């Protein structure tokens, strides 16, 4: 427990030591603000907050790979990973610690968007179901993307390769939804249930569905386990 805390705090701290973190947060906040004004001012409808949450979830596909790209790739490149493995800690400590660190950073990044909720409160009667559901979905989704990002980063020594491969995976997962209509009913139904976008949609309209929570959490666990395996496999073969 102590080890996890140590690793995740170190990860969080080192995010704020690099200029990249500030660039990411600035870009994210600017774009989120642009979407918010665009959507809410045009529709003049507080319930359109669900469209805003949906757009932000798309933005995460772009941002998360950049947040997670250095986690393992940089340690692989610099050789600090060799040292880390000589300490008395298990591989899953490292993976989970980095996961928590990246998740906390993402929370910090999403935090300023709560200002928009106060705007809605000031000028309208917002539906808190949509807001709670939307943020629950957003947090689950970003954790899910982070687990993909860590997996991609553990595969390589290059941050660029890690970012691009993670971006590719996330984009493909997003695009699965588009196939649903074109394929027949049976395959379409299967694809729909494994589509992150499908599950996220319910959160964004304020429905907190246990199926969605279980599905996304199990994807996270699966990807983290895969990352642990990759690390161990690398050690055993290298």
């Amino acid at each position: 427990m102590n080890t996890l805390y140590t690793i995740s705090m170190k990860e969080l701290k080192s995010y704020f030591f690099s200029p990249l973190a500030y660039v990411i947060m600035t870009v994210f906040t600017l774009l989120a603000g642009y979407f918010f004004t665009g959507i809410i001012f045009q529709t003049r409808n507080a319930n359109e907050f669900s469209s805003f949450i949906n757009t932000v979830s798309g933005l995460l596909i772009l941002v998360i790979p950049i947040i997670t790209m250095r986690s393992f790739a940089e340690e692989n490149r610099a050789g600090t990973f060799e040292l880390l493995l000589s300490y008395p800690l298990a591989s899953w400590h490292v993976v989970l610690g980095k996961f928590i660190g990246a998740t906390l950073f993402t929370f910090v990044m999403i935090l300023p968007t709560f200002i928009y909720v106060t705007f809605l409160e000031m000028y309208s009667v917002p539906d808190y179901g949509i807001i709670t559901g939307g943020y629950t979905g957003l947090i689950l989704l970003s954790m899910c993307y982070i687990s993909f990002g860590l997996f991609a980063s553990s595969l390589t020594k290059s941050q660029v390769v890690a970012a691009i491969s993670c971006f590719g995976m996330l984009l493909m997962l997003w695009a699965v939804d588009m196939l649903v209509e074109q394929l027949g009913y049976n395959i379409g139904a299967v694809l729909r249930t494994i589509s992150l976008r499908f599950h996220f949609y319910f959160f964004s309209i304020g429905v907190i569905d246990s199926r969605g929570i279980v599905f996304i959490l199990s994807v996270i666990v699966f990807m983290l386990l895969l990352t642990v395996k990759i690390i161990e496999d690398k050690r055993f073969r290298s």
Partner: protein
Amino acid sequence: MIELRKVVKKFGSFTAVNELDLKINKGEILGLLGPNGAGKTTTMRMITGFFPQTAGEIEIAGQNIIENSMECKKKIGYLPESNPLYLDMKVNEYLGYVGRLKKIKNIKSAVDSVMEKTGLTEMRKRMVGNLSKGYRQRVGIAQALINEPEILILDEPTVGLDPKQIIEIRNLIRSFAQNHTVIISTHILPEVSVTCDRVAIMNRGKLIALDTYESLIGKYKTGKDLDVFVELSGDRKKIDAVLNNMKINFEYLDEHKEIFKIKINKPENEIRPELVKKLTDENVKLYEIYGENPQLENVFISLVTKEEEE
């Protein structure tokens, strides 16, 4: 303290370490020598648990490193060859981080005492990335030492340092000798004679020599392959005749004094007894005859080339 039994490490079809048997005693400093690719780093990585061996067994203080990896890792301090550090942390922060990962109880006093030992106290608030190479090396050694490990494994600890820093680091390593078992790998041969109790020479994954520095040198101190010096006085012509008769390749060093000094260039066989006899038969006054004091370089090169010829 550390025992390797028939340890093999293969990378695909390449065998990096081949049936290595090695026993290192408590409180000993062992120097691991060998040309590039001899398997020194691989051996160290197996002991630190970076990767497991393909076959054979490694025990640390009687515990198998595969079965009790956590217990074994707690006993080890490791400085990898490239001295990887997090450049975006301050020295005391970094050491505190390592201390917490190594599960030390009293972090603050451990960090302070290890900085004191390695001479980093003044640099405590500096970023690791802004330190000079010598200080970074100290940080690397400090992180290895912070849990006061029983075993210290240093992969080329003095590489890339200036002579003054090398001496400082060597003294540092020497000062740990009483309480720690130390394994050092190095290319720098004089380093071994200064710091190590015993020397293990590896080549192509095999141990080809394991002994104290003195006895390794002693075994090699024969009349062969090393220059022989003779100091004598007498008739130059007689001396020349004797030496030429023996088909010896020689040169005069101090020929203008009463006592000559002759250097015989690397004789192929042991010539000293025969030479002494012949010279005294000719009534030449012989003052001294001695072989060049061999260096570890000679031992190393002869062992490695001998092994490769076989």
